[in-house]
């Protein structure tokens, strides 16, 4: 098949249009990624230890953290948006036998060490977020 000058112009326009569409798609994808990035979980894990010192760790970063005071040692694990009391050298295991936390209303409480683990509140929390919990 032989291309005439008119056909060649049409083809160039088509290629240009496709290229622009691809560029627009790429830009849109980038914008979505940026938007997703800005909506990332910026909450922090707050640990108030028995000496009254506040420790802060990003909830989005997996890892373990050990807090030592004269009252004892506690190790928390942050994993996939949840926080667990991995270890505590308290007398009867009360500090370990607690549910994981992943919301701002929840806390892990280690009374013998006067240590409290919580998650900072997120201003985007939905209206049905639990504000506090009755019963220990």
């Amino acid at each position, binding site marked *: 098949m032989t291309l005439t000058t008119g056909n060649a112009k049409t083809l160039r326009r088509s290629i240009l249009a496709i290229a622009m569409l691809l560029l627009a798609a790429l830009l849109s994808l980038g914008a979505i990624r940026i938007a997703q990035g800005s909506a990332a979980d910026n909450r922090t894990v707050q640990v108030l230890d028995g000496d009254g010192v506040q420790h802060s760790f990003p909830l989005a970063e997996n890892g373990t953290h050990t807090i030592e005071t004269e009252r004892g040692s506690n190790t928390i694990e942050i994993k996939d948006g949840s926080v667990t009391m991995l270890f505590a050298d308290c007398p009867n295991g009360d500090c370990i036998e607690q*549910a994981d936390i992943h919301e701002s209303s929840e806390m*892990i409480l280690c009374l013998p060490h006067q240590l409290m683990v919580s998650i900072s509140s997120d201003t985007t929390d939905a209206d049905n977020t639990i*504000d506090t919990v009755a019963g220990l």
Partner: protein
Amino acid sequence: MPAVLSGCSDSPQQSEAAPFDENDESTPTSLVTFLYDTVIEIQAYCPQELLDKVEDRLVFFENIFSRTVSGSDIDMINHAAGEPVFVHPETIDVITQAIGYSELSGGLFDITIGSVVDLWDFKNETIPEPAALEQALKHVNYRTIELGDETVTLLDPAAKLDLGGIAKGYITDDIARLLREGGCESALINLGGNTYALGSRPNGNPWHVGLQDPNQPRGTVFGSVDVCDKSIIASGINERSFTKNGVSYHHLINPTTGMPLQNGVASTTIISDRSTDGDAFSTITFLMGLAKGLDVAKQYGGLDVLYIDTDGNTIASEEMRYESL
């Protein structure tokens, strides 16, 4: 069961003092401290100076109500060998109310249980010897408390007061009053799981309070209630408890045996206007069991009751509104 409250427009006791900056809804002032052998958490939409006053008041109560603080009113009464002790008006008031709960519960609620409580150590998992319990039980009788205008006398010198079943509720009511008088219209008070929702959320919606599942580890919520100006208090087998040789022991002691009451109830939750009522009745309804507990609460009036048994079944009074999660 759906919650029914959608707003708090009828919130009582609005203060005439200037409200907190309504434009700053997202940043409540907060107070976290360890007192009464538990954690205290208060978040309030009010100036920090008001929370400073609240903290002073909390310490004041620790210093007059705690059995383990040397020189507290309760410590002095317990070591007075039957002699009258001059105490603060708040101590007279809380003991007067405690005696009232003792009378309406036929002695199931009894703050002279201190000599029995002394024998239990839930931190170190100590179970009392039967002979020691038997001896201690002889000194549990609220009728041996003699109240004067400013004095308290334990007519049985071996009796010991323990305000564990009422103090946190009483203090919560006092703190709520203090916050209101300071102009606070929106706050959450949590004294070791004893909660009070003052007013509403800053946006006018009810507070959303979770309910601990007594059959699961601490922090496991099974439901929630939407409340304004209400106290929410639970007594359960999960608090101050341990398991030894396959047997679970918890802090809800039967005053006639000195042993934890095993009646199939895992927890009772009380929603009430007054936290003092909620604290006392969460214990009373637990110890009375389902049928009698619901009946007594209904007769008293103004109490919503939720029972959870050890199999996880829930039984609620007619007025109780909660939402399962």
